């Protein structure tokens, strides 16, 4: 084991949301993830840690990136990993969810990674299945491992999290990444700003502890971290913004707007990117500013840490 600490702060059975986690819980997950970064880079493995455990990736929404990241994390720790893709359009979603949960229980799955297009679906599953449930993104609610990997990336680049100014930009209203990041970063002592057109800023978000900006220049001024969000195409068809070019003009991140942030500000994006819509390629590919590739690497380490932590209860019971 990489973490030889007498105190394990993370005592939850599941990882459903960042909201509600305490700083020591988040801090410990990040420390553990950091140790997995070193392990992964050294080429060593920990294949005994989850040997004999079954991890099921249950994805009701397509996501190559997150699914692969969890798959790799599980395999590096020695778990048996099974991917289940369930098309959410072909069948009644609700029946599938409940029926699938019953099936998974019969299979004695230990760790269940779930992505669903409905907010709260993992909470519902967690009430039914025996496995530890990890939310890999639910509707517009939360995406906790994304926030953890973003925090780890920030911490490694900036040497700290507390006290930084982070601007989260774009479609806040429909972003689970934004919500998880807001909870994590405010809990860990950041100044968090959200920046976007009023139609993409959700109601009363300032009450969660963020400052709202509708102007990129003002929102980025003095920021240590600029976090861009993916703009879904359907936001245009539903009329929340008039066009991609107008969006890029006012809310797309280019070098000109980025110049208002701190000179050493880093640029993040959860991917996949819409180049030329929310981010200019010159920024996305700028090795001095963009940490987008590093986020992907951190993703595997963070998911290893989460799988490790959630399995500790079981391992304690067995020893």
């Amino acid at each position, binding site marked *: 084991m990489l973490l030889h600490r007498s105190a394990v702060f993370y005592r939850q059975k599941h990882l459903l949301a960042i*909201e509600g986690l305490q700083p020591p819980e988040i801090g410990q997950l990040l420390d553990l993830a950091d140790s997995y970064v070193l392990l992964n880079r050294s080429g060593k493995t920990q294949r005994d840690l989850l040997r004999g455990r079954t991890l099921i990736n249950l994805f009701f929404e397509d996501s190559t990136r997150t699914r692969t990241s969890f798959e790799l994390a599980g395999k590096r720790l020695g778990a048996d990993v099974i991917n289940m893709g369930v098309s959410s359009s072909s069948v009644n*979603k*609700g029946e599938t*969810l*409940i029926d699938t949960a019953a099936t998974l229980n019969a299979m004695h799955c230990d760790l269940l990674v779930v992505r*669903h297009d*409905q*907010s*709260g*679906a993992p*909470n*519902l599953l967690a009430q039914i299945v025996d496995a530890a449930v990890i939310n890999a993104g*639910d*509707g*517009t*609610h*939360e995406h906790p491992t994304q926030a953890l990997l973003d925090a780890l990336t920030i911490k490694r680049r900036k040497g700290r999290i507390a006290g930084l100014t982070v601007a989260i930009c774009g479609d806040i209203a429909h972003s*689970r990444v934004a*919500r998880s990041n807001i909870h994590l970063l405010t809990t860990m002592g950041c100044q968090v700003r959200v920046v976007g057109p009023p139609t993409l800023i*959700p*109601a*009363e*978000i300032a*009450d*969660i502890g963020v400052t709202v900006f509708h102007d990129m220049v003002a929102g980025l001024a003095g920021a240590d971290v600029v976090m861009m969000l993916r703009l879904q195409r359907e936001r245009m068809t539903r009329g929340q913004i008039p066009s991609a070019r107008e969006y890029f003009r006012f809310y797309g991140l280019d070098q000109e707007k980025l110049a208002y942030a701190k000179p050493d500000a880093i640029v993040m994006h959860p991917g996949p990117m819409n180049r030329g819509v929310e981010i200019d390629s010159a920024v996305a590919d700028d090795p001095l500013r963009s940490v987008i590739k590093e986020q992907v690497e951190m993703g595997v380490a963070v998911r290893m840490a989460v799988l490790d932590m959630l399995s500790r209860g079981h391992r304690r019971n067995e020893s």
Partner: protein
Amino acid sequence: MNPDTLFSRVRILGAGVDVLGDLLVRDGHIVDFGGSLGTPDGATVIEADGAVLCPGLIDMRAALGEPGFEYRETIASAAIAAAAGGITTLAALPDTNPAIDDPALVHLLRTRGEETGSLTILPYGAVTRGCKGEELAEIGLLREAGAVAFTDGSRAIASARMMRLALSYARGFGARIVQHPEDPSLAVGGCATESEQSTRLGLPGIPAAAEAMMVVRDIRLAELTGGAVHFAHVSTGEALALIRAAKAAGLSVTCDTAPPYFDLNETSIGDFRTYAKLSPPLRKEHDRKLVIAALADGTIDAIASDHQPRDADDKRLPFALASAGGSGLATLLAVTLAHVHNGSLSLSAAIDLLTARPAALLGAEGGRIAKGGVADLCLFDAERIWKVEAGKLPGKAQNTPFDGRALEGVVLGTWKRGKRVFG
């Protein structure tokens, strides 16, 4: 013929009556009440020192599972729940399958109510055919068949033109139009009150203004047509202020609310609790307090159960996909009494909101304590404590938003036309 029933030493309460004493029932009617009445030969004596005897409750808004949704609730199971809740008359919503848009269906519901022996069902007629909002239903024929008022149930009459026609046409038959006050184009896709909480949970929100917008439109249409509009389950302070002003201006505007809107707020949905998913959605605490104030000052004309039976499969879904609605028959009285106990309402005002006032709106028999009046009665202990538990409620529909709520006030017995039907 049933033997006489004598209620001995009870607090007799309802519509201007508040006396301690006896009440005698014979042949389904109240013969006499007040003071000490002698016990006639062979009479059944109900001894209930300190208990309250009031008119059987008149629930002016409840959905029944019949016809079309019998898996949720049958009329027989609703009648059991109603009797246990002290309800003897219930106005049934018409957005069933088929919708109550044909006089034969009005007859059917009335008859099915009679067959229960414990519950009078007063059917609402559909405003539009199939409650689809497109063409007027046969309001005149439905009225003649016994429809008490007209509504499209849980669906708002969206088109201003259709609402104008309905108010105008129904006026000719002296009928009231009952509106679900929510602007559907603004509420579309929403499943919770738009707020910090809906933002945290990532649930599409419905702004409180969606209610006020429909209320302001329909008040204007009532003014334009001279028709009578009633707003159901009003849940926001803004809408209530508009209704208060319309009443002061002498318009024919009335409204009701339901226990969830004065007892719960949006925090009840907490961790995606679908049993607390209602339509309209539970509101902010600020609005809940304003609903209480409007009950106390008389702006709200009635408290209805807003009973919406659902089964487990309707509710065991991700929040946005789950069906909205809560069961409410068995908890109507006790949740209302909670706000008598905490000093927000007087007991007599609360009972009137559950009996005489909805009876007047519906033109229903009962709802009063009067010599010669029908003996639909509810006897309750206002102090006894119980806890609401989903799964243990009377009747089939267990989808209560009050699961786990401790309440004071237990129905000891319910009488329909002098016959004991509960307790």
